[in-house]
């Protein structure tokens, strides 16, 4: 008899808005998969409403947003607001990509737990995620 299956951590990797580059998102998705996570990838050009709906329906532990096109200051707070509004308070929210240092405090303020800039170590992202998931 096998042991009761362990709980798998589910991560939603999301691309918001008109940002057309998802190589980074795919690299992170792959790293999560190889670390044993279940990754749901939204695909490009998502509205914050669609990402919030996906986070709820998929009951994910983590939402990881990749942003390269500079709209992070608008779209990420909109997403965190939608999640809060719908009572989602146990999801770890991470951001990554090209996000200037100066913009980080506002994102943290909006509910993002950590921002991973260019050159971040994938292992560090995985470790941070494992330690900080909220359930």
């Amino acid at each position, binding site marked *: *008899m096998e042991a*009761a*299956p*362990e*709980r*798998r951590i*589910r991560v939603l990797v999301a691309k918001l808005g008109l940002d057309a580059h998802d190589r980074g998102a795919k690299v992170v*998705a*792959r790293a*999560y*998969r*190889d*670390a*044993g*996570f*279940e*990754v*749901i*990838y*939204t*695909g490009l050009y998502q*509205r914050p*409403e*669609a990402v919030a*709906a*996906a986070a*709820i*329906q*998929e*009951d994910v532990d983590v939402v990881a947003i990749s942003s390269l096109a500079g709209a992070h200051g608008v779209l990420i707070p909109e997403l965190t607001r939608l999640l809060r509004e*719908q*009572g*989602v308070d146990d999801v770890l929210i991470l951001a990554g990509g090209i996000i200037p240092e100066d913009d980080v405090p506002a994102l943290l303020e909006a509910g993002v737990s950590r921002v991973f800039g260019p050159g971040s170590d994938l292992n560090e992202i995985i470790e941070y995620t494992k330690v900080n998931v909220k359930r």
Partner: protein
Amino acid sequence: MTAEERAAELFARLATGDRRALARAITWVEDGAPEASALMRLAYPRTGRAHVVGITGPPGAGKSTLVDRLAVELRARGQTVAIVAVDPTSPFSGGAILGDRIRMQRTLTDPGVFMRSLAARGHLGGLSPATAEVVGLLDAFGFDVVLVETVGAGQSEVEIMELAHTTCVVVIPGMGDEIQAIKAGILEIGDVFVCNKADRDGADRTVNEIEMMLDLGHMGEPGINRWPSETEGAQASQSADGAAAPDGKASVGARAGDAALRRLDRTGHHSAEELGNVASYLTRAAAHAAARHGTANPGDISWRPPVLKTVAKDGLGVAEVVDRLGEHLTFLKETGRWQARREHDAARRLEELVRERVVRATLARARAVGDFERLVRQVADRQLDPYTAADEILRSHWGG
């Protein structure tokens, strides 16, 4: 709070239409959480209403795109839709990338649609271990239709047939000899066949090959042996309901789509539909009449699966797929198969649960006193064969 109380609390929220509660319930069931069986116990009385439709076929056939379009079409007809999409788990890391949402963009924020991605978690056969329970929860939540998309493995997804009321097999043109390969597995599980990407060369040939294989299996049977051809269908609907058809608009749209598909026939040969005119099988309409008027034993009426063409990315042919899925449900109900199926499912489920529980309890007792480990060592060292060892465990630890 005990597991039972937590399950009851969550289920009460689920029962009022709380989608977050539904999502969490699915997670508990998928993870085999302590709350899972209490949850399923509560859900069971509310199940048995949804039409469960399986979508299967090889990778890249366009299953996800078709599911997205089916959901749109079903919504347009006022039905609520749940989607379960299963993708493979990596055998190395246990992780998975679930990408079916990428192709399901049209209904993502529609409150009448709920979509959940499941990882196969080491389970073979195209589904994940908890798929049946997840479908049960979605059914209990009240969705009219549950679309279950299997892993795109291709040849042995017979499991979906057990889970779904109606199984839709998606193939693509140009599979050549692979059509031969699907003869044994897929051809027998499909209730509706869809040749997707029908704008590609060879669609008619693929359709013909499937039609021919299906005819071999249905020759001489009473009932729905041949779907009316395009021209017959058009004539029938014109003469039957004239301009007063309430769904006239929809069928005109469907016909326009068919015409577009017909133009895509680049081979210049006779289409399957034209060849179909020659056949003197009973038509679908005649079979329904026979069932309604009791001229034949409804249980004798068979379902000859239709073979349809779609271009899912453009939405072509999708309305007809939805029509046929609905007709198959009607067929199941009118011929008594729906009820028979329920009894079959109940028997199978009960058997499964008893087996699972007997195994778990017996092995737990054998482990508790160290018998299991002792016998494993003896079998590994070839002092004992596994058959004798199994008998010994059953003799000392089974039952009670």
